[in-house]
């Protein structure tokens, strides 16, 4: 093995196919998009170079400010819910259900395999108020509360989006974190138990520190997925009312493909890239030290 890996030609041969595909589908389009962000125009009439105009417009466009704020708010709130809820589920699998957890894990994981658009349509009907009153409002009615038009206000729509995306993804984070928890040596847990640690203390002082690497990985994974939310919101309420729940990604799509402003759309795409990068670096920075300590 060592002999093969010291052969440069072999390394090139092994890497080449993956590298070609990666460059073809990731690097080239990204570079292309970066180039587009300095141009204005359409495929029909051609493109003109406009310098940094698209980027300066990012600062002055009130919709960018609003969608950026929404994206960050959505990502932070959803991420906290995903990690906390996923972690609790993982603990539940590990300590309460133990070997019986397979069925429950499968059931909780099930929404992950559903297409986001189908889930969005489902939630659209669940929370509907017209033309038919949906199940959620029916329950409210039973309790004597007036039905709420969830999608009419930014706050209501935001609540539905968080509930929907949490339901859709909690099972995934639970399994991811569960895999990390299972990895913790039973000897460590056993000796902690003998030392008298149990319940909350066991989780706080033993399980949590030892599972930090997988939690950090989940946070980075979740943050990047949440910052790039698109399909579920598009299908649920198209970012409405108005642009109250429009994430950057959806605004980028609308700008490029509905308003035919490819240059400005690419500039928004660059903003999303920078946002993901900054988020990831921040999480890494804040965690590196502590992860090192824990492991």
């Amino acid at each position: 093995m060592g002999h093969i890996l010291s052969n440069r030609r072999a390394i090139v041969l092994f890497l080449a196919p993956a590298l070609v595909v990666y460059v073809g589908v990731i690097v080239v389009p990204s570079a292309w998009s970066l180039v587009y962000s300095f141009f204005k125009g359409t495929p029909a009439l051609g493109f003109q170079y406009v310098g940094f105009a698209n980027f300066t417009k990012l600062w002055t466009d009130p919709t960018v400010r609003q969608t950026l704020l929404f994206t960050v708010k959505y990502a932070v709130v959803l991420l906290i819910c995903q990690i906390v809820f996923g972690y609790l589920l993982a603990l539940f699998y590990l300590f309460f259900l133990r070997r019986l957890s397979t069925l429950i894990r499968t059931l909780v994981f099930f929404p992950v395999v559903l297409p986001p658009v189908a889930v969005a349509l489902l939630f659209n009907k669940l929370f509907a108020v017209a033309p038919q009153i949906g199940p959620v409002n029916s329950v409210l009615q039973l309790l004597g509360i007036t039905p709420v038009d969830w999608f009419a206000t930014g706050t209501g729509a935001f609540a539905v989006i968080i509930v929907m995306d949490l339901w859709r993804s909690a099972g995934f984070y639970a399994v991811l974190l569960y895999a990390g928890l299972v990895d913790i040596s039973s000897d460590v847990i056993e000796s902690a138990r003998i030392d008298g640690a149990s319940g909350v203390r066991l989780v706080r002082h033993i399980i949590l520190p030892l599972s930090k690497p997988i939690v950090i990985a989940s946070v980075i994974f979740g943050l990047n997925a949440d910052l790039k939310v698109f399909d579920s919101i598009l299908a649920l309420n198209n970012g409405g009312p108005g642009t109250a729940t429009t994430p950057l990604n959806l605004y980028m799509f609308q700008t490029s493909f509905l308003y035919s402003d490819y240059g400005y759309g690419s500039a928004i795409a660059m903003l999303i890239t920078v946002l993901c990068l900054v988020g990831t670096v921040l999480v890494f920075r804040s965690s590196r030290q502590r992860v090192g300590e824990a492991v």
Partner: protein
Amino acid sequence: MPISLQSTPDANLQQKVQLLAGQNDLPFMYAADNTTIIPGGTYYKTGNVLDIGKALDKLGVSDDMTAVAKSTIQQTFDGTVPSVPFQFNIEGLFYNKKIFAEHGITVPTTYDELLADAAKLKAAGVTPFSASGSTGWTISRWIGILLYRELGPNAMQAIKNGTAKLTDPAYVKAAQQVADLGKDGYFSSGITSLSYDAATTQFLTGKSAMMYMGTWLLASVNSSQNTQGNNIGFMPFPAVTGGKGSIDQYPANAGSPNVINAKLYGSNGQAWLKCIAQNYGSASLADQGTFSGFKVNTPVKNLPPLTGDVQNIINNTSQSVLWFEAYFGQKANADASNDAAPLVTGQMSAQQYMSTLQADLASGN
């Protein structure tokens, strides 16, 4: 000639047309946004737009296009005729005669009367107006017609020419009036996510009293979707007291643009266009009960009563106006529609609504 049709979801249409234009591969006929086919627009510049008016002249069938359709198209497209008028629609209020009779309401002629009627219906537990929040132009057209009634037929032309702004108090007032309709609870409840189909079904099944709509709705009125039979009536949008517009000025349009690609217009295309000009008017009326911009050369008998009524109105219309978004680009169009529900649910103020649109227009979108 063999005809092949490609259907594309509305949201992807402009993207597809653009790419085809970029590859110089547009089909014989395509759909495009208004602003792209006027003189100076994208496809006009690329030479993909045939002037239908001149083409019909050359074919000797220019008389087969109705004068009112031609003038409406010319008004929309800076004096040119880039679209085949497969439709000719006027807009007004469809109403349910039975509900009106039950509540002792007669057809209102002024906006104040309309508001009084709406209050009466609302108090009796009837939804006065159907509209769809997810298809927001069903709401924003109200702003347009109020502007035309209040400021006269040049209300939107002035915006286009830059002699007025949507943020001027007179314009914001119209948006405020529509916001007030929402505040008073006159529109369908749950309007934000109510779809176009759900809203029309609500009206055509007698669950609301009125709906502001174009006469393309006749296709649904004449279908099984309508459970109210001949109780559906059509009236002009009432006049605004002291306004410069008048009640007989109907907003009119010639349907979504259907553009013939000038680069592919040959002898087959000419024969086809001539056939359409001579026969489409009758076929459209006989088969769907809807009107086109072509003359009805073969009289159609036994028209449903409402279709006949509307035909009379169209034949007697001397002046038409455009609709709210006629001069808007893609972004302004989308914002006018998407922000309409927040406007009537109080999530957005009239001032905000109009300034968003004005900003879109100012940036050329």
